[in-house]
């Protein structure tokens, strides 16, 4: 079909409100003059009939136009067919009945006039209801009537306060999809043949194919569309609709990267700090409490003297600790590591280099959720140790030089999204494996995007540069310098 004509269909949402207004005006007019029985301006009067004729002609015209444009719009597709056919039926009915009412009025068939007007009004209400359901979703009014903050995310929280049961997709992703996406990509209206109301539907996708690729956010159309600049036509949610916040975008990216292929509890999902902050805002019960500084330091003091290791606080206000057992060397082993348990939640840096800890002993690291730096150089650990390390969500620095770790070991580190420094000299790790790991950990496209942003900002700065020229005269006393004499030593060398 001709695109111009199709585009005309988009005037439908504008036009539909005209017949609604004018028909309700007529109803108001009828009711008003039923109670004010003054002969000269009343229901029976000449001028009354003229006004009625005018309103009816107007209503009929705009009703017919609306129905026509509506039909054009429906040709674009993407709407839930059941709802659409109901809306269409009542829409055409309004147009037809308005015409009928006009004819009845002109024929002065008074007995039929009021009943038909009632039918027109009822039809109009039904057409409006189904139209509204098409654009806003069929549960639009339900939410409104519930009188809540209309925030299904908050509702999910209220309904599921047990942190042990909160799920990533069902409790964090799905409520977001409901508020931000489902009005266009839901059961009622599925633009681009895309529905986002269930994990299966998301995976099935729409016209562009599957909307997510698990473990690959940058290849997932869902993420791509979200990340497009808002000025782009293909950006989602469309301009003018409520947008996703940065934290919500990060949540989507993290979910696609790590957990889109599974149903997992948030408590087990090890989100990176940005996502974690967002999630713990949603589910306050998920937040791990900050350990009490005084208690931790008291315990640290005792442990440091008992084990003869160095434990230092990292901050004057927070409880975080730096623990080094390096100088105890092989006198420090798994049982000593286990004794760190009382201060484990506060350890941010742990130096176990040259100690006698083993693969198995490293299971004690599990409770060190704050750990950022870990030295395990010159220990007897092997690839088996990596599963105990891969669960440390905040780890940024890992030193495994002079160990027996192989490629297989470090490829198990992919869940460590925050890892930025790996020291692996004198191991059996190949440069290819390191390359593969870095590709898993760092999204090069994201960096390229930031680079593009920097370039754009640079361009704007250049654009804003102002220079004024008030003329300039050449300074006096400038002479052409002598030819460069080479320094003596250089001359000697030549």
């Amino acid at each position, binding site marked *: 079909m001709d695109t111009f004509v199709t585009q005309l269909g988009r005037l439908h949402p504008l036009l539909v409100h005209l017949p609604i207004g004018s028909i309700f005006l007529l109803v108001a007019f009828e009711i008003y003059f039923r109670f004010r029985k003054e002969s000269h301006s009343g229901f029976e009067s000449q001028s009354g009939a003229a006004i009625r004729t005018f309103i009816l002609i107007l209503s009929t015209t705009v009703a017919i136009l609306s129905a026509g444009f509506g039909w054009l719009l429906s040709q674009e597709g993407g709407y839930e067919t059941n709802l659409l056919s109901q809306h269409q039926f009542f829409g055409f009915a309004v147009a037809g009945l308005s015409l009928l009412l006009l004819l009845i009025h002109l024929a002065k068939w008074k007995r039929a006039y009021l009943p038909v007007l009632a039918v027109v009004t009822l039809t109009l209400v039904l057409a409006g209801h189904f139209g509204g359901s098409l654009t806003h979703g069929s549960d639009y009014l339900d939410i409104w009537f519930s009188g809540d903050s209309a925030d299904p995310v908050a509702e999910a929280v209220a309904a599921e306060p047990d942190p042990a049961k909160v799920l990533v997709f069902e409790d964090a992703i799905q409520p977001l999809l409901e508020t931000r996406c489902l009005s266009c990509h839901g059961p009622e209206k599925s633009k681009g043949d895309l529905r986002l109301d269930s994990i299966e539907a998301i995976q099935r996708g729409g016209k562009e194919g599957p909307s997510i690729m698990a473990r690959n956010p940058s290849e997932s159309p869902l993420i791509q569309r979200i990340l497009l600049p808002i000025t782009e036509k293909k950006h989602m949610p469309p301009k003018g609709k409520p947008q996703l916040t940065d934290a919500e975008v990060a949540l989507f990216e993290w979910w696609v990267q790590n957990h889109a292929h599974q149903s997992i509890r948030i408590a087990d999902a090890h989100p990176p700090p940005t996502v974690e902050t967002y999630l713990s805002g949603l589910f306050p019960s998920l937040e791990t409490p900050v350990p009490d500084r005084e208690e931790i330091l008291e315990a640290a003091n005792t442990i440091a003297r008992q084990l003869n290791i160095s434990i230092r606080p990292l901050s004057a206000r927070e409880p975080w600790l730096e623990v080094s057992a390096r100088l105890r060397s092989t006198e420090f082993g798994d049982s000593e590591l286990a004794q760190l348990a009382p201060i484990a939640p506060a350890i941010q840096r742990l130096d176990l280099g040259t100690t006698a800890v083993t693969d198995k002993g490293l299971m004690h690291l599990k409770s060190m959720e704050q750990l950022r730096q870990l030295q395990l150089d010159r220990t007897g650990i092997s690839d088996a140790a990596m599963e105990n390390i891969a669960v440390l969500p905040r780890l940024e620095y890992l030193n495994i030089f002079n160990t027996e770790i192989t490629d297989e070991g470090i490829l198990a580190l992919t869940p460590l999204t925050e890892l930025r420094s790996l020291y692996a000299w004198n191991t059996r790790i190949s440069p290819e494996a390191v390359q593969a790991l870095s590709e898993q950990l760092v999204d090069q496209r994201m960096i390229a995007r930031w680079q593009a942003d920097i370039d754009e900002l640079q361009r704007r700065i250049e654009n804003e540069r102002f220079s004024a020229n008030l003329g300039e005269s050449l300074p006096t006393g400038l002479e052409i310098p002598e030819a460069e004499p080479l*320094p003596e030593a*250089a001359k000697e060398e030549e």
Partner: protein
Amino acid sequence: MSEPPEIAWLRQQQLGWSRRTFLGKSAQALGALAMGSLFNPRIFGAASPDPAEKWRGIIQTPHFLPRAKRVIHLCMAGGPSHLETFDPKPVLNRLHGQPFPESFTAGEQLAQLQGKELIARGSSFGFSRCGQSGQWISDLFPHMQTIADDICIIRSMHTEQINHDPAHAFMNTGSIIKGRPSMGSWLLYGLGSEADDLPGYIVLMSEGGGQAQPISSRQWSSGFLPSRFQGVPFYSRGDPVHYVGNPEGVCQSTQRQLIDEISRLNQLHLEESLDPEIQTRIAQYELAFKMQTSVPELADMGDEPESIRELYGIEEPGDGSFASNCLMARRLAERGVRFIQLYHRGWDHHGNIDGGLREVSKLIDRPSAALIKDLKQRGMLEDTLVLWGGEFGRTPMGQGSGRDHHINAFSVWMAGAGIRGGLTWGSTDELGYKYLNDGQQVHVHDLHATMLATFGIDHTKLTYRSQGRDFRLTDVHGHVVKGIFS
């Protein structure tokens, strides 16, 4: 939380002194009364830490997030010329052999060139842009050129002392007045040392490539701080410490008994005289006993693979060379020593600067670069601060075939411990005569403040009361050079 013994100790020290002052000025009777409590050994004993126990530092919680755990100071003693090393000056090269512009030097204090005719002297050596960062480094240093991206070159250094000994004192203590503690001693006082079987502050020497000016032992003195915090020089040739073995017929347990008995007697003496230096003596006996086992292990470089010796360019470990000292520095760093200072005496090029620089560069270039690479491959560059530089720079005016001392501009570099590699910080004027006052100028006090900041210490808060006033390493000066942190 109970008061850490280090804090209690400090409280005791200061209490003792204020009482002493009080006694001096009071009537005898009142003094005698106070004597009773002052000299009651139980009061003193309760608050004082066991002097044989490890000192954990006066700063119990850092003021900022600490990055550094140790410092390796590669002190290029004698005053390396910045103009041939890290600060290329094409304009000076053009002026070579011509009179030095008087506008620069009028009224300025010079050392040996005072009152002489001043002739500009260009650099005989070329510079190259190195690494990803494109930092300019002299072709004299082909190896250091390969670590350009790891080091932050500061070109705007300036100091206040124009002769070697006071300038070293200024670099070490922030003052030329005798009796001030050096920066290593301040760090030990503030943080203690991780190692308890080696001194926390160790000094090594090497020489070659130029006039070797003497280095006085006051450079690593603890000044008014208790002397347990002073630097301990190790021999760089042969055994680092002599006579650590037991004499024939004495076994380790006999030795232990001997030390215990001496410590007991010292403890008695301490309770009587209250002299904190006796605490030092007790601590040093204990340390020396531990060093009987730790030093032979440290000195045995046989466990270093050939590749590492090759990296540093060491001909024979323990041969007294700068290269051997650099490897020793890394071994000390691994063993938890807080402050390691390597002096290379050979940069005082008043004459034949070109020949001298060639010679000294051969001795120090490769080991300096190797130290950075070796620390880096061990993951230690993240928490080791390396400082490379001399006590001052050299004049852009020639002194015959050399250059004179110069305090208005010199270059140093720092690496590790959160310092941004690949950065050139600060500048000098077009002739390399004076630092530019462009907000990136770095005074020796600023360097000290910055060094303490890498350890998480606010330089205004590390103080010690001596002779009635609080002293600090930066005295009343110093700004942290925040721009060089990554």
